């Protein structure tokens, strides 16, 4: 039994992993850690399915080298590390250290992060190291620094429970941070007077239970909060003593707010929200002292992200609402170790241990501690600029760790080009076939969750251990080890760590180094965790920094009204609002927004492997208002092309009035391995916030047009289909099933001989039986390959899109032997017994389908989520499908009334 931490979102839930005999992942049992302060035993659907993602299929188990012709050769670690070190040395010698860059990830553990940052800034002497946290959190970091003098999240999750008003801004908490959302909902059940407001252009699952949903226009948040700041002042809701004694800049911030948002009508127009609704929200905020404003990617991923953050913090500073239970601004991070990466300085514009690059005293402090030969003096290239520099040849060597920028970065096709231009591209990953690793000259096999060992810090400053409970597979090694090995080969000293524990100890000591009034005082201080022995490190229980003395844990910052600017005051920052960088026009009239879905994580390299996570939303999609779809001439459920000035993709259209007019939503997850053309990153404008460098993922002008096809097919197969880019159908998606793969296909032109086509497609050797059904008078065709009574593969082809139920077909693959009725069903293309068709997955934890839930509601007259849970279990584990169950109950009631 191992206590560890979940590797997905920034909630950072504690997980207990129990390994069965022989350490087989299949015998792994995962449960929430009842004592972890983030989740107290709860887990969301992704966390619950962790065991399903740990199989070794497709894992990169030894270093790979790619030769000049693109051939991949297995290599030893020595060969691979030598190649990395000599390549780097050559490039540094020829072009200087600025030609080298690292692009790392919030998936790294703090120890990995610390070592790579140390190598780059203290030994290579460049600051060209950036992280995918740039894409998600850097605006919050910049905003925190401006307001507090340091990147500080003062509050904690308990504050959300204790608050009387929680404002969720740009956060689909119900899907993206499910456990925090559940804690919030539980606290509301206990105190029904608690109010919840959601600020989000989309009507997301999070809005279901909100008291108020402000569907603001994309990018208008600063107007909204400037309007609030003005309102608070006009209504005398100002903590004058706090403002006078502990802040600066209030007058300037208020003047800027008044100038831009002094009239409610102006705010209403800018935000696209009725005046009365603004008044309701402002009055609610004004009259509630215990208010927490939670913000996430909807705020950060903007060309004015930093200003958005400060416009929110301004309102809390003006009212003195922070530093006490149940109040404060609260940034909630996207990744498990986004905050850990910030602590070690893994961003191009920070140094280490919350110290700054552009401050000589800070540089001296770090260099003295490291005893390093050099220290970076200038901020390095931030993510988008970094890949642009690779594109134009300034960056020649790039090492990417634990992230997939070809899928996740804006203007991602250009990123792919940039990678192709690097003289040396090193990728450390679990998989050698990711879109990014496919371009690498050196692929280093990394350790994954359950194999690696170290610490992470979640959104509430809570540091906890991620621990290994599985043996390292093949030749895979920790990232810190690979970095140290390269450092050693470059002739550097100071990288002779034997374990992550030693790295953590150094990191803890650095945080405490000269951290007092004589040196540089900063809040990030974990000196109390220095000097732990290996055993104590392994037994480290979650604690919130600062940790000055062993056993400390700090629930809340700012209680003492002390901030970390030189004058110890906080700053209100003037935030004149700016519209998003690229406005929609006649050619690209719609605004593309991107984000996560409930059951997938990032670019699906891990969650895409779990069949029970695949069925909630199996295909890449674009959401659009039905009226907008009508105006664009596209129909619900059909394939459409989504394009921007930067790129294009193909996805299935989902019409929903939850999506506001003139906007689109596309999830970020699909990549070239599991879909023909669904990388939304290729469309996103490469526009960034001038301070934080965070890209504007939430606002790209785009258009939607039909993607006409002549036929549709669904294929189930126990082995992967082999098609190359040349002979692939116009549209395909690969979906992981339980013991099979499902493909949704669509193509152009007539398939002259479906039998031949299906044989070639399935490539099934010689099954004992082929069933072929060619519907007379139609072009409908189906084929199934059986081995004795076991289904090997099947394909349904039709000019129409209404192909057989996927959940029913999936069930047939779970059977060892098909019954006679099953075979009849296969030929008919539908289940002989309608009860066999569970429908699309709603509850992924227990794989409960839509039809099963609807039947239960109808047959038993169920009226609440709890009753549905008791009856069919759906929604009783992670609870993230509860909003959907609620909607099904409402629909069933409507249908009944009609």
């Amino acid at each position, binding site marked *: 039994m191992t206590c560890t931490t979940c590797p997905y979102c920034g909630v950072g839930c504690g997980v207990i992993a129990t390994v069965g005999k022989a350490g087989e992942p299949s015998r792994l049992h995962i449960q929430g850690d009842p004592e972890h302060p983030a989740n107290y035993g709860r887990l969301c659907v992704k966390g619950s399915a962790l065991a399903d993602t740990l199989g070794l299929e497709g894992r990169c188990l030894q270093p790979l080298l790619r030769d000049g012709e693109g051939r991949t050769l297995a290599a030893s670690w020595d060969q691979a590390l030598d190649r990395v070190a000599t390549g780097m040395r050559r490039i540094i010698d020829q072009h200087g250290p600025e030609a080298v860059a690292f692009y790392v990830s919030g998936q790294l553990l703090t120890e990995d992060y610390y070592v790579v940052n140390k190598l780059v800034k203290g030994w290579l002497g460049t600051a060209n190291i950036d992280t995918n946290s740039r894409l998600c959190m850097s605006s919050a970091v910049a905003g925190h620094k401006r307001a507090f003098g340091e990147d500080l999240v003062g509050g904690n999750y308990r504050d959300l429970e204790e608050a009387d008003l929680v404002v969720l801004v740009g956060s689909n908490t119900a899907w993206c941070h499910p456990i925090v959302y559940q804690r919030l909902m539980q606290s509301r059940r206990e105190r029904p007077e608690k109010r919840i407001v959601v600020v989000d252009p989309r009507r997301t699952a999070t809005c279901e239970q909100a008291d108020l949903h402000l569907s603001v226009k994309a990018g208008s948040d600063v107007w909204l909060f400037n309007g609030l700041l003005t309102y608070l002042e006009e209504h005398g809701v100002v903590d004058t003593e706090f403002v006078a004694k502990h802040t600066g800049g209030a007058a300037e911030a208020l003047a800027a707010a008044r100038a831009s948002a002094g009239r409610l009508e102006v705010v209403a127009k800018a935000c696209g929200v009725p005046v009365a*609704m603004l008044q309701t929200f402002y009055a609610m905020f004004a009259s509630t002292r215990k208010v927490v404003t939670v913000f996430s990617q909807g705020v950060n991923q903007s060309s004015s992200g930093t200003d958005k953050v400060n416009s929110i913090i301004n309102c809390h500073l003006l009212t003195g609402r922070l530093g006490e239970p149940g109040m404060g601004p609260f940034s909630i991070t996207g990744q498990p170790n986004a905050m850990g990466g910030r602590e070690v300085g893994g961003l191009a514009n920070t140094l280490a241990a919350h110290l700054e690059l552009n401050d000589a005293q800070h540089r001296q402090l770090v260099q003295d501690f490291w005893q390093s030969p050099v220290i970076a003096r200038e901020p390095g290239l931030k993510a988008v600029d970094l890949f642009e520099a690779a594109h134009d040849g300034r960056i020649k060597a790039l090492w990417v760790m634990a992230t997939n920028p070809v899928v996740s970065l804006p203007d991602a096709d250009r990123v792919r080009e940039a990678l192709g231009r690097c003289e040396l591209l090193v990728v450390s990953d679990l998989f050698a076939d990711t879109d990014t690793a496919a371009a690498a000259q050196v692929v280093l096999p990394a350790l994954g969750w359950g194999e690696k060992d170290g610490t992470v810090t979640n959104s509430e400053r809570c540091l906890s251990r991620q621990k290994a409970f599985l043996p390292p597979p093949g030749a895979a090694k920790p990232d810190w080890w690979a970095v140290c090995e390269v450092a050693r080969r470059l002739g550097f000293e100071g990288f002779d760590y034997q374990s992550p524990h030693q790295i953590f100890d150094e990191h803890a000591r650095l945080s405490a180094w000269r951290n007092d009034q004589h040196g540089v005082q900063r809040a990030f201080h974990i000196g109390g965790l220095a000097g732990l022995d290996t055993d104590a490190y392994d037994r480290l229980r979650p604690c919130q920094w600062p940790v000055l003395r062993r056993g400390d844990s700090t629930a809340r910052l700012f209680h003492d009204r002390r901030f970390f600017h030189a004058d110890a005051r906080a700053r209100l920052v003037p935030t004149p609002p700016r519209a998003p960088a690229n406005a929609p026009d006649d050619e690209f009239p719609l605004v593309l927004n991107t984000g996560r879905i409930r059951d997938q994580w990032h670019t699906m390299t891990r969650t895409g492997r779990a069949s029970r996570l695949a069925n909630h939303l199996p295909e890449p999609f674009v959401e659009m208002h039905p*009226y*907008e779809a009508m105006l664009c001439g596209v129909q619900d459920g059909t394939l459409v092309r989504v394009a921007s000035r930067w790129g294009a993709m193909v996805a299935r259209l989902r019409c929903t*009035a939850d999506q506001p*007019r003139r906007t689109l939503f596309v999830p970020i997850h699909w990549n070239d391995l599991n879909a023909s053309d669904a990388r939304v990153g290729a469309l996103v404008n490469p526009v960034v916030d001038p301070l934080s460098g965070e890209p504007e993922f939430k606002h790209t002008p785009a258009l939607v047009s039909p993607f006409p096809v002549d036929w549709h097919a669904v294929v189930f197969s126990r082995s992967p289909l082999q098609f190359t880019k040349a002979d692939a159908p116009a549209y395909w998606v690969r979906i992981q099933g339980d013991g099979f793969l499902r493909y949704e296909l669509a193509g152009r032109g007539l398939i002259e001989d479906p039998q031949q086509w299906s044989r070639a497609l399935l490539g099934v050797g010689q099954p004992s039986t082929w069933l072929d059904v060619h519907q007379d008078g139609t072009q409908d065709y189906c084929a199934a390959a059986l081995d004795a009574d076991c289904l090997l593969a099947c394909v349904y082809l039709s000019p129409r899109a209404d192909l057989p139920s996927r959940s029913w077909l999936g069930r047939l693959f779970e059977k060892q032997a098909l019954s006679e009725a099953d075979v009849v069903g296969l030929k008919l293309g539908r289940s002989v017994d309608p009860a066999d068709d569970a429908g699309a997955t709603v509850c992924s934890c227990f794989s409960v389908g839509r039809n099963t839930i609807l039947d239960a509601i109808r047959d038993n007259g169920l009226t609440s989520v709890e009753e549905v849970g008791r009856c069919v279990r759906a929604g009783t584990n992670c609870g993230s499908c509860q909003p959907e169950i609620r909607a099904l109950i409402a629909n069933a009631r409507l249908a009944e009334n*009609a």
Partner: protein
Amino acid sequence: MKQQRLVVVGNGMVGQKYLEHLVAGGLHQHYQVTVLCAEPRPAYDRVHLSAFFTGRSSEDLCLVPAGFFERHGIELRVGEGAEHIDLNSKTVLTSKGAMLGYDKLVLATGSYPFVPPLPGRERPGCLTYRTIEDLQAIMAAGRDAEVGVVIGGGLLGLEAAKSLHDIGLQTHVLEFAPRLMAVQVDDGGGRLLRRKIEQLGVSVHTGMSTTEIVDGEFYRHRLNFADGQHLEADLVVFSAGIRPQDSLARDAGLAVGERGGIIIDDHCRTSDPAVYAIGECALWGGRIYGLVAPGYEMARVAVDHLRHARDGTPTRQFTGADMSTKLKLMGVDVASFGDAHASTPGACCYRYEDERKQIYKKLVVSEDGRQLLGGVLVGEAREYNTLLQLMLNAMPLPETPEQLILPALGAPLNLDVTQLPDSAILCQCQNVSKGALCQAIADGCCDLAAIKTCTGAATGCGSCEPLVRTLLEASETLAGALAEMDA
């Protein structure tokens, strides 16, 4: 003998119903029938107009079966209205300049939306909500609009508001009266209705009197109100009631009411015996009927009278109509029947309100508590049919009438359909009686679909469907029992 000429002016829902009855009675063979249809398309379902915004096409809404006119030899002149009627020469001058003679003339010209005489009412983007063309105009204007406002919080106004909401506009409803649907619901029902509609994201402003529409500062228009407040919007839809389309008749010298409407008698005849008027253009008993069911009844009565004039068969009369309605407004069930406002002297009320589930129910009963006079249901209207039948058939109320609207704690109280008289009209839209339904069942209609095809019941608003089902089930039980006896 030369065939007589029948001209029907208007091919709306009622005009089309008239033709259907004409054909059903074979009368079209005796007349040379010409239909003038000013709109660019034949009759369509105006009641479900808002479905147009959720992707239904005008074809989907069409009420005319394919080939109807050709098959029955009826001449339809689409896009051609009547300009002038000469009662003396019995001629109609059409908008395309044709002169049509008639022996009988039927006016089914319907109504037009009332636009209050506000300064600024004709600004571009100030529209009405009645025809498919109106809807197309709203959709076109909605393309670039952000805020829409509907003037009028009645039944049609709320339908219009739903349409604006459906196309993704910030939507406001302005109502002059202190509550929504002032005609149909009382204060309690109006309050709940408002709350529910506001929860859907539509802003409701009651007691608002618009004085003018001028240029807006933030949006295209600014509506100024009598109390000094104002509201801005890009799109304004007037839905402040309807007015009978009676100008043709008025110009021709037919008798019209003081406040409009072509005066008709119990046979739907106007002051000229050769001319009938049916539907919303007609004034019977000093009253305009703005619902489709009474219009359908007028169509039937007018055809009946035509036949009577030919063969002397007994004729039915129009004796007024029940204005009870049940509808779903923006997903909210609303029903109003009979004396909803308890204006009958001595009337007493029972009220039940559940603010959590958002349900409001009111019964109006006679002074002695024996008769149901009317009621209002908002948020849930399951009992509507039961209550309507109790009222229409003057059935005695139970000792404790409140149990009719209280949530069922024990077994639900259902109307025993079998207790209703055969004459009870179960389908108000298509005017189908219980007797006719029982006959259809006896003749072999064994499921709902068959009954719909055979009798037309439950094909309109559908609110009688539960009653029809109960009748079907009762007959099955009976048949089962008989079969058992046989065995």
